[in-house]
């Protein structure tokens, strides 16, 4: 383990009774990285963070924070951490300044250092207006900022933030992410959230967990590319209405368009998307790295159809996230282990439905799809 690894988790597992909240999680976070820790609710994000902050102990495996084992040297770990738990649980009857002073006292900051640090965190977190106010009178956004301020008061090398933006309105969220970029410049930040847009704006790397397991870990581009599919949206005019038709020949029929698009090289899957009567719209899925737009355009031009729309849709992080974690819901609805067989059958049925709808799918494609799932 090199010196630059600030957070290191090795086969981390945690069970609550018979419920396995974490199942052999492995990851590391290096100095200066801002890492988004993603997953649906109940995936194990908070559990992981609570283990890293020494609030609970792992059932198996170990973790090191700043080189200290979370189990053997909890005080050393806590010293090098700033932690903001979910929903920023602060002492409501204290004023902001009192709270910061309390945090500073427990971190053993001497009065001079405290004054300096407090000045800087108040500035970064935008708390100057509310310093004397009791925390109970603050909005959630401000409470979140106070929570962040107390996590920063001792200038820790590592920040662990559990859903820091869940209670914020869109403006506050944007501001918060700005702070995060500022303070994350020379710090290691692990940030959990289920909001993907936040990760896209503030993190370069994401770890996606689902039902206690890591399903993806890497730079956002890599994760995005993981599904390896690019979508194109094509719509061809179907009816001109009252106005004269500008294309060559007669208006195309649905089957004609579908056949022609299906024959374009590199098309993996073709689905019609519902529209009104004015257009035939199709979603074309291709293999990666191959831009189909010139071929599609040429095809339409050759046929003399009127192209209303053609654009390429990069797979969004949202799609990847959904495809990686979608199984959770299904598993949640499954009551007994005995139901798992039925469940699998259902899956197969689903797939057949899919295959029927994508009429142009060849046997090889079908096999490829089965492989993926």
């Amino acid at each position, binding site marked *: 383990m090199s010196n630059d690894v600030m957070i290191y988790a090795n086969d981390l597992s945690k069970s609550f009774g018979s419920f396995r909240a974490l199942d052999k999680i492995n990851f590391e976070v290096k100095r200066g990285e801002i890492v988004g820790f993603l997953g649906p609710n109940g995936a194990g994000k908070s559990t992981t963070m609570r283990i890293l902050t020494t*609030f*609970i102990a792992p059932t198996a495996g170990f973790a090191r924070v700043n080189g200290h084992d979370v189990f053997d040297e909890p005080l050393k770990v806590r010293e090098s951490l700033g932690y903001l738990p979910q929903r920023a*649980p*602060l002492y409501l009857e204290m004023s902001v300044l009192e709270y910061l002073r309390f*945090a500073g006292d*427990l971190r*053993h900051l001497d009065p001079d250092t405290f004054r300096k640090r407090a000045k800087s965190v108040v500035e970064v977190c935008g708390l100057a207006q509310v310093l004397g106010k009791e925390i109970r009178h603050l909005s959630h956004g401000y409470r979140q900022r106070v929570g962040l301020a107390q996590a920063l008061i001792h200038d820790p090398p590592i920040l662990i933030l559990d859903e820091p933006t869940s209670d914020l309105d869109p403006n506050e969220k944007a501001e918060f992410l700005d702070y995060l970029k500022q303070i994350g410049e020379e710090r290691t930040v692990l940030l959990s959230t289920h909001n993907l847009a936040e990760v896209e704006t503030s993190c370069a790397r994401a770890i996606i967990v689902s039902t206690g397991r890591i399903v993806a870990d890497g730079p956002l581009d890599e994760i995005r590319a993981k599904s390896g599919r690019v979508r194109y949206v094509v719509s061809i005019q179907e009816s001109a209405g009252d106005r004269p038709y500008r294309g060559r020949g007669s208006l195309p029929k649905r089957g004609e368009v579908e056949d022609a698009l299906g024959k374009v090289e590199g098309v993996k899957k073709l689905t019609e998307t519902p529209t009104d009567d004015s257009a035939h719209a199709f979603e074309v899925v291709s293999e990666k790295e191959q831009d189909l737009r010139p071929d599609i355009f040429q095809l339409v031009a050759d046929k003399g159809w009127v192209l209303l729309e053609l654009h390429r849709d990069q797979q969004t992080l949202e799609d990847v996230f959904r495809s990686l974690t979608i199984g959770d819901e299904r598993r949640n609805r499954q009551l007994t282990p005995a139901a798992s067989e039925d469940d699998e059958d259902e899956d197969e049925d689903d797939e057949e439905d899919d295959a029927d709808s994508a009429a142009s799918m060849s046997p090889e494609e079908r096999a490829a799809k089965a492989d993926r799932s």
Partner: protein
Amino acid sequence: MRNILIIARRDLRAHFNSPVAYVVLGGTMLLLGYLFFIAPHMAVSGTSVGGFWEIDRATMDQMFTYLPVLMSLFVIPAVTMRSLAAEKGSGTLELLITMPVKDSEVILGKYLAACGMVLVLLAATLLYPIAMFKWPWQLGSLDWGPVFSGYLGCLFLGGAAVGVGLMFSSLTESDVVAFFLTTGTFAILYALGWLASTVHGTFGDAVDFISFQARYQSFARGLIDTRALIYFASVTVVCLLVSFRSLESRRWS
């Protein structure tokens, strides 16, 4: 040690920053005034006598009969329920524990703060003997010995009761449950104590042994009973250990 004091100071301030402390302390003082001056009551000796004015003697007997009851039934449960149970419920404990403090420092800090509240209450009751027998009034010559021993007894009993309250507070996440567990425990102990005074034999002895009230009685009479001091101190230590273990158990659950 420094962390203990920081936590204790914060807790004590939190008590006084919320209305609970004032309501509980004020209410207790009012109730104590009623019981002391007006209500007919059973003296420590067990004989039925009138209120302070009726018995016409320079004694603080009534106060030392009721003070420990009021303390352990109302004041201490109301204070200790906030110590850990409320903090667990609201999640603030997670933030406190992930600061560089030991679990034992958290427990001791909370314990000290709750004891501080008991001290405030005891200091407030000092008004009674001072106002009546020193200044501005001299209603008679008071024997200060039993007053001193009575306060010592209250202090030790209070310390043990805070321990019990803190223990229940550490075992639950609901402050209401913590309050009623503590109050209920003392109510049962007092009820058993009264029962034991009429029952003799092994059962009576056994109840006498665990009853706070029986242990405390000698102090109210002016006796400093070291066995009772050790008893209260032991209860305190055991309860603090249980609280510590219970706080630590969050890691394993």
